[in-house]
C-alpha cells in the first residue's frame, strides 16, 4: 500500500544531477512496508505472459493457425498492458508528482525518475510492442515462421524478460528499503518471480532441450548457460535455504500442470501438412529434472557462505552438470520408452506437423556422437556453468543491496 507523506527538504546535490524531490529514509521505508499494488500488477503481468507463452506454443503445435487475437496472444499482450499501466504510471507519477512517495528511492534516466525496476520493465514493454510490427514484417519477408528462436520473437521474449527482471528489481528494492523484521512475503514473491523466470527461460531453451536431444551435448550446454543464473540469484537474494529447490520445483510443477491440463481441451489442426493426428491441445515435454541437482546446490550453499564466490561457482557447476547428467540421461531413456507414453509423462503427445521420419516421432535420440566429444562438451558445460553461477551469485548479492 502506498502511503502519502508531506514533502521533505531537498538536500544539496551535484549541479549536473537532475532535480528531484527526495524524502527522508524513514518516510521511504515506511511507505514500503507492504507490497505495493504496482508490484502485484507486474506479477500478474509476468504470470500472464508465461501462461500465454506456453499456451501459444501449444496452440501452434495443436491448431497451427493463429491470428493476433487468439487467447494465447491476448495473455501475452496483457503483460504489456499491465506493465504499461503499472510502470508508466509509476514513472510519470514519480517524475511529475510532488507527492510521490518514491521520489527519494528513484534513479534518473532521460529526465524521468522512478525506481530502477520501472525503467527496466518499461523498456521491456516497448520492446514487446516493437516486436509486433517487426514480426509481422518478418512473416511477409521470410514466411510465417514456425520456430521459436527468430529475431522478432527474441525481441518479444527479451521484452517479457525485461518485465520480469524489472519486477524482480522493484521487489528487491522494496524489500531492501523495508525496515520490517520479516520479509517472508517479499521472499515468497521473489521465489515465485524466479520460478517464472526459469519457466520462461526453458521456452528459450526448448529447441535445444527437446526429448531427442537429451543424449546430445547441446542440452547440457543449454542448461549450463541460463538456469544457473536464476538458481544462484534466487538463493543469494532471498537467503532462503531451499531457494534453488523451490524455484526448480515451481518449474517442474508448472510444466507438469500443463501436461495434465492442456490435453483436456479439444483442438484440431487448421494447417497442413498434418503428419500426426491431433485431437487435443499438445503439452510441452516432461520437465527436466532440475530439482535433483537443485537440492544438492541448496545443501552446498548452506555450507559454503564464507567461500570465495568463484570457488562456490566452480563447485556448484560441477554438481549441477554431473548430477543433472546422472539423473536426466537414464530418465530420458525412460521417456523414450513406451512406458512413458501416458497421461502423466506425456510422450505420446506428438504435434501435428511432426514428420513421421523425425527422431521424436520414431522415439529415438538424435545421434550422440563420439563419447570423447560428449565428455569434452560436458567440461565445456561446466566452464559455462561456472561463469553463469558466478554471475547469478553476484547479481543476487547486488540485488540484495539495491535500494531504488
Amino acid at each position, binding site marked *: 500500500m502506498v502511503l502519502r507523506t508531506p514533502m*521533505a527538504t531537498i*538536500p544539496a*546535490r*551535484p549541479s*549536473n*544531477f537532475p532535480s528531484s524531490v*527526495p*524524502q*527522508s*529514509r524513514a518516510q*521511504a*521505508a515506511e511507505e514500503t512496508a507492504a507490497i505495493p499494488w504496482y508490484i502485484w500488477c507486474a506479477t500478474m503481468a509476468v504470470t500472464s505472459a508465461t501462461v500465454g507463452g506456453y499456451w501459444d506454443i501449444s496452440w501452434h503445435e495443436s491448431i*497451427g*493457425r493463429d491470428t493476433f487475437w487468439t487467447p494465447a496472444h491476448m495473455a501475452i499482450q496483457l503483460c504489456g498492458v499491465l506493465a504499461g499501466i503499472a510502470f508508466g504510471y509509476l514513472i510519470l507519477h514519480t517524475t511529475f508528482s510532488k507527492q510521490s512517495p518514491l521520489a527519494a528511492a528513484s*534513479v*534518473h*534516466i532521460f529526465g524521468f525518475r522512478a525506481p*530502477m525496476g520501472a*525503467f*527496466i520493465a518499461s*523498456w521491456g514493454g*516497448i*520492446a514487446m510492442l*516493437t516486436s509486433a*510490427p*517487426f514480426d509481422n*514484417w518478418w*512473416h*511477409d*519477408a*521470410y*514466411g*510465417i515462421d*514456425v520456430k521459436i528462436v527468430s*529475431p522478432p520473437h527474441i525481441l518479444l521474449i527479451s521484452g517479457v524478460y525485461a518485465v520480469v527482471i524489472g519486477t524482480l*528489481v522493484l521487489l528487491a*528494492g522494496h524489500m531492501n*528499503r523495508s525496515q520490517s523484521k520479516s520479509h517472508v512475503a517479499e521472499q515468497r514473491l521473489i521465489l515465485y518471480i524466479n520460478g517464472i523466470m526459469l519457466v520462461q527461460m526453458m521456452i528459450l531453451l526448448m529447441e535445444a532441450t527437446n526429448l531427442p536431444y537429451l543424449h546430445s551435448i547441446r542440452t547440457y550446454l543449454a542448461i549450463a548457460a541460463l538456469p544457473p543464473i536464476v538458481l544462484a540469484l534466487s538463493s543469494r537474494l532471498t537467503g532462503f535455504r531451499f531457494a534453488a529447490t523451490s524455484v526448480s520445483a515451481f518449474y517442474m510443477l508448472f510444466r507438469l500442470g500443463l501436461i495434465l491440463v492442456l490435453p483436456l481441451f479439444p483442438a*484440431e*489442426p*487448421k*494447417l*497442413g*501438412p*498434418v*503428419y*500426426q*493426428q491431433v485431437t487435443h491441445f499438445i503439452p510441452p515435454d516432461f520437465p527436466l529434472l532440475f530439482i535433483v541437482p537443485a537440492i544438492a546446490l541448496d545443501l552446498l550453499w548452506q555450507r559454503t557462505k564464507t567461500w570465495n564466490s568463484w570457488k562456490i561457482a566452480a563447485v556448484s557447476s560441477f554438481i549441477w552438470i554431473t548430477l543433472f547428467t546422472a539423473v536426466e540421461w537414464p530418465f530420458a531413456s525412460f521417456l523414450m520408452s513406451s512406458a512413458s507414453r501416458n497421461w502423466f509423462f506425456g510422450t505420446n503427445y506428438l504435434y501435428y*506437423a511432426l*514428420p513421421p*521420419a*523425425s*527422431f521424436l516421432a520414431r522415439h529415438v535420440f*538424435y*545421434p550422440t556422437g563420439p563419447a570423447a566429444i560428449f565428455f569434452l562438451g560436458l567440461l565445456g558445460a561446466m566452464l559455462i556453468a561456472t561463469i553463469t553461477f558466478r554471475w547469478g551469485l553476484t547479481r543476487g548479492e*547486488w540485488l540484495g*543491496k*539495491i*535500494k*531504488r
Partner: protein
Amino acid sequence: MKFLRFAVPLLCLASQAHAHVGSPDVFLQGKAGPYQLFVTVRPPLTIPGVAELEVRCESPGVREIRAVPLAIMGAGSKYAPIPDALKVSPTDPQFFTGALWMMTAGSWQARLTVTGSQGDGTLSVPVPSFARASKKMQWGLGVILSAIGLFLVSGLIAIIGAASREAKLDPGQTPSESNLRSGRKATIIGAVLVIAIVVACNYWWGYEENDYNQRIYKPLHMAATLNGTDLSLQLSEPGWMQARTIQQIAFRVFTRKMDDLVLDHGHLMHLYALRQPGLDVVYHLHPEQRENGSFVLPLPSMVAGQYKLYADIVHADGFPETLVTEIYLPARSARPLSADDASASTEPWQKASTTNNAFTLPDGYKMEWLRGDKPLLAGQAMSFTFRLTKPDGTAPGDMALYMGMVGHAAFVKTDGTVFAHIHPNGSISMAALMLAEGMPADMQMDEAVRSTVSFPYGFPTPGQYRIFVQMKHGNTVETGVFDAIAALPNSLDTSVGRRPL
C-alpha cells in the same frame, strides 16, 4: 546493420522461373461432382504463406464450398486439417473466395468439397508450393523501427549507467562523485556490450535471411549442347530442397530428385524452342531421356537462329518444373517432325497486329481466337477459346486428340519473363492432376474431340504476349499464333476474379 538497411522498398525476386516461368497462379476448369468450377489459386510469395483461392461456379445450385490443403502424396496426404469454408461474394452468388495456408514447399493440392442442390462433389487442384522471393522492409516501417531500435539501445545503456550510479544509494542520498564516475564507467561498458549484442544479432539476422534464401525455388539447371544433329540437354541440381544433414533427412519430407521424372501426357519432357528475339519460329518437341538427368533429341529440320528452350518436366510426386536455357541452332536439313512434334513460323511479334483474331495455317486451314469484346487485363482469370476450321470455314471432320487433349497452348510474354504451357483443364500438370485425383500419372485424358478448345488462364503481368495454340486434325498438328496486349486493370472486378498487381 540491418536496422539501417531497411530503406530499400524493393521486392527481391530471386527467381522468376518455376512450374511455368513468371506465371505462378494456378488455373483449373474441372468438375466437382455435378458442378463445373473455374478455380484460381494465387500462391503466396513466401512459404509458409497464404494463397488466395477464387472459385467461379459455372453450374447453378452451389451452396457451400470448403477447401483444404493436402500433400498430393506421401505422409502429408493421410490426415487433413480442418477445411475452411469459402466466402460467397455478396454481389455474385456464383463466386467464392478463400485462403489456403501453404506451410511447406512441395507438391500440394487444394481439395475442394462442394455442397449444393445437386448433391456433393470434390475437386482436387494441384498447387506446387515453393518460396519465390523475400521482401525488403518498406522505407517508412524501416525508419520507425530503426528509431525505436535506437531508443531501446540508448535506453538500455542508460539503465545500465543508472543502475551503477544510483541503485544502491539509500533513499534520499545524493550520488557522490564516485557514484557518478562509476555510472559513467558502467555506461561505457554497457554501451560496448549492447552494441556488441546488436552487431551479433545483425549477423544472426543475416544468417536467417541467408537460410531463407536457400529455400527460394531454384529450377533444375539445364545445359544445352549440339552434338552433330542431336541436341543434348543435361540437367543438374543447383541445390534446392536437398536433405544433407541428419536433421534435414528426418524433417524434410519434400526433397527434389532428378531420377523420379514421370510421363506427362505421354512424354517425360515437353520442349518448346522459341526463336529470339521475334518469337517468329516455334517448335514443340519431345527429347528422350538416356539416363537420369540426361536428355537427347535428334533435331528435325529447323530454321537457323538463337533459340530459347523451355522444358516442362514433372516429378513423381506431381511437382512440375519448367527449365530454361538458350542455344544457337544452325540451319539444317534433317528428319521431319515426328508424330507429336509441331512447329510454326510467322512474322516477328514486333511486326504483328495485336488485334488479329485469325491465323491462316500452311495447309489453308484457319485458327480463330474467339476473343470476345472484353478487354484483356493482367491478373484476371478467363477462358481463351480457339476454333479450327477448314479452308471452306467448316469444322474439320477428322479432329484428333493431340497428346491426349483437344489442344495445347503456350503463353509467352515478348520480353521473355513469362512462359506458360496450358492445357484445356488449365495451367496444372496433367500428371499432377492424375495423382491428386488418385489416377495413374501417365493416364490419357478421355475427351470428346471438338474443333473448339478453351484454355483457362490469366496473364500474370501487363505487357505484350504471343500465344501459340496447337490442335490436331488427321495426322496434322496445327499451330496458330496470336498476339495480345494485357492491360493493367484500373478497377477491381471480381466477376471472374482478379487481384491487384
